[in-house]
């Protein structure tokens, strides 16, 4: 069979002053009809740049240095713009990571999908409406006629992504490029979108170029895999071979970093609770006194949980389940409406402002986004020393302690006088950790501490968290949407949905014999759950 798309010896040069000279270097691969080719790599590996080259949408200053992109025997590199426009959208379509920003917020979904037909065909208005409606039904959007009239913000994230897929498939393209299309979605929605893509592919025979960082997703949908690192393809082959018997050291390292989806063996966890949460509720009311659209949202609804002393409790849930609100209630960034949070004989739910400030050092928090959680205008050492200084430690002493903490979290103590932007994502998360640890807390709350990090860095940070917990005798409350992450470090798991805890128990039990329907759905949606990660010697 002839490949529909063939990339040969492609090199793409970055503008001078970038972190490396080439975004892509000597990349060759081919895509076939009816096949899903997954391109896997960490951030900065050049996988998105490849999509840009194929679509002919290079950022300014970036240019193709060498190589060809053959689509039906036409070289796409250097193709004049009018000719490219006839191919783009009609023959090669693309879907993006964040459907909200890829859709125009001021135009209806139907209008935007209809645009595809108006641009590339001469169909009548009536026909376009019919075709659009049929497309939306095909991507299984509930109530297609009303979805056509909806604006992007009126649909959920999953529905928006379905609309994007409908738009991309409008003209039956030969190639569909999907750039991390499910990364911004919840795990259950992700499972639905992946099965939809597979289903559509089987019916239409489209070649899918699927760009992702997630090996679970790869295991779920790929027929062939290309692994990228630093702009080069380091390994390529059939999915079964690359996933189960990786040859390249880098691939092996990436795969070894994927946490397996099994609960850890039971550790001897003391049953005494260090933190007991009872009946905590937080309700939001939107719309003022005179508004007609008043809405009441129970963000956290009568939650009761206990954190075992020296153990790790994982709170798992999808976006909007209230897990982050609960964490913020515990550190009192948000004041809970009702309930008690007992710690050391104190009720954190009802303490006054100044008392919270005094006791804050016992319960510390690590934030999700390592780029947003550090003040860009302060030096790293200062960021770590800030807490102790606020609690009365002399400045010099606190700064000296910051250096020790840097060593503790695996950073170079000499780098304390650098600014946050000079560190990588994983390093910044370590600074955040040092900052929390500077106050010698007894409880550490980690809100999605690794979800913004690459998978290999994820594994390192998780291992560090677990190590420090054991070494410093911390109790850890880990909030995550990723069941694989929870499986790796948690002793106990609580599953949250719509503000309530639906299931709580020892991690191994929850993973092996979930009792609640929703837990089963969550576990059944984890991509690549049937793939048994090979044990390699690379890690």
């Amino acid at each position, binding site marked *: 069979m002839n490949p529909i798309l063939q990339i040969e010896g492609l090199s793409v040069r970055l503008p001078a002053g970038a972190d490396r000279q080439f975004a892509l270097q000597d990349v060759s691969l081919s895509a076939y009809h009816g096949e899903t080719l997954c391109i896997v790599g960490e951030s900065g590996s050049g996988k998105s740049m490849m999509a840009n080259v194929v679509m002919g949408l290079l950022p300014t200053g970036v240019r193709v240095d060498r190589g060809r992109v053959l689509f039906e025997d036409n070289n796409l590199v250097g193709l004049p713009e009018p000719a490219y426009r006839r191919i783009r959208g009609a023959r090669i379509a693309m879907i993006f990571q964040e459907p909200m920003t890829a859709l125009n917020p001021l135009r209806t979904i139907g209008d935007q999908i209809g645009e595809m037909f108006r641009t590339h065909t001469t169909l009548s208005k009536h026909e376009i409406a019919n075709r659009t409606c049929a497309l939306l039904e095909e991507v299984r959007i509930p109530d297609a006629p009303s979805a056509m009239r909806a604006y992007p913000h009126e649909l959920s994230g999953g529905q928006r992504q379905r609309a994007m897929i409908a738009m991309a498939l409008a003209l039956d393209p030969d190639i569909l490029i999907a750039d991390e299309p499910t990364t911004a979605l919840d795990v259950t929605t992700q499972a639905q979108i992946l099965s939809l893509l597979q289903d559509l592919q089987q019916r239409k025979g489209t070649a899918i170029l699927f760009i992702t960082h997630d090996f679970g997703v790869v295991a779920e949908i790929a027929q062939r895999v290309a692994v990228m690192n630093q702009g080069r393809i380091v390994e390529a082959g059939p999915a079964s071979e690359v996933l189960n018997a990786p040859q390249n050291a880098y691939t092996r390292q990436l795969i070894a970093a994927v946490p397996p989806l099994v609960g850890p063996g039971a550790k001897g966890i003391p049953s005494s609770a260090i933190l007991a949460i009872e009946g905590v509720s937080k309700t939001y009311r939107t719309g003022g006194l005179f508004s007609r659209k008043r809405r009441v949202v129970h963000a956290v609804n009568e939650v009761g949980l206990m954190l075992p002393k020296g153990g790790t409790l994982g709170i798992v849930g999808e976006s909007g389940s209230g897990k982050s609100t609960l964490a913020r209630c515990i550190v009192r960034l948000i004041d809970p409406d009702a309930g008690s949070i007992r710690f050391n004989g104190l009720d954190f739910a009802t303490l006054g402002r100044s008392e919270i400030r005094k006791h804050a050092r016992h319960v510390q928090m690590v*934030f999700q986004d390592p780029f947003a959680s550090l003040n860009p205008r302060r030096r790293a050492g200062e960021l770590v020393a800030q807490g102790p200084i606020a609690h009365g430690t002399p400045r010099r002493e606190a700064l000296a302690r910051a250096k020790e903490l840097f060593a503790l979290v695996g950073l170079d103590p000499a780098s304390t006088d650098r600014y946050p932007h000079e560190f990588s994502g994983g390093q910044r998360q370590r600074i*955040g950790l040092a900052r929390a640890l500077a106050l010698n807390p007894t409880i550490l709350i980690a809100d999605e501490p690794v979800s913004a990090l690459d998978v290999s860095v994820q594994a390192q940070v998780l291992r560090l968290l677990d190590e420090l917990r054991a070494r410093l005798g911390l109790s850890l409350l880990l909030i995550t949407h990723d069941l694989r992450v929870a499986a790796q470090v948690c002793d106990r798991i609580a599953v949250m949905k719509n503000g309530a805890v639906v299931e709580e128990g020892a991690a191994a039990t929850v993973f092996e014999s979930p009792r609640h329907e929703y837990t089963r759905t969550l576990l059944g949606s984890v991509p690549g759950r049937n793939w048994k990660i090979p044990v390699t010697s690379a890690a």
Partner: protein
Amino acid sequence: MTFLRLYIRSPSAVFGIILLVLVLTAALTADYFFPGDPLALAGRPLVWPFESLTLPLGTDNLGRDIAAQIFHGARISLLIGFAATSVAIAIGIVIGAIAGYYGGWTDDVLMRVTEAFQILPNFLLLLIIITVFGSTLPCVTAAIGAVSWPAVARLTRAEFLTFRTRDFVQSCRTIGLGDIKIIFGEILPNALPPVIVYASVIMAVAILLESALAFLNLSDPNVSSWGNLIGQGRAVLRVRWYVSAIPGFAILLTVLAVSLVGQGLNDALNPRLRGR
């Protein structure tokens, strides 16, 4: 250093800074070139410029040296510009920061007060304050500052609204930092760039406001300011236009200089424009 490099990339910003330095030099060397009182009589009234070597820019209708008044007036204009801007920025930042950080009813009350100032035309309010408190130089400066702060407050509030929910601010709260420290130590340095840029607008407007007051003979008559000179020239505008035109041109150059510098600061401080 990178800031300097970004700044000098724009020719108009460099032109602005050169103009500003010229005006500053005039202000600083006024006593050297024109010692003594600039309001003292220097010769016959209404001498045309370039007629006499000792009076290069001529004299006004009372026979006072225009060049001396321009040089000494630069001091007053810049002084009022800087001082009034500082007053406006200080009031605006404090009110905007508190409103934006605390939100809720604090925000409501402070913003209604701000709006109360905004709905009155600036100049009208200025006239009222001057009428009530008199027109000495400190009073005029304070009054100009007092009518210029609402925009700064709104700008600062908008910045604070976006920053207060950022993770790094939340993280400062979890380590137990006090509100005052968070507002002025953590958020303010991040919120400052747009306020600094806006300060140049306030400064330009402050210079103009003072000139307008002086033109109406409502500024301090005992100091030599450009506005006073324009006000003097009004009486002889048809036959001796230069009496008003020369200080007018000085005001034009100064306001232009300040605005260009502000534009340059904006381009240099705004990270979105960096790649261009």
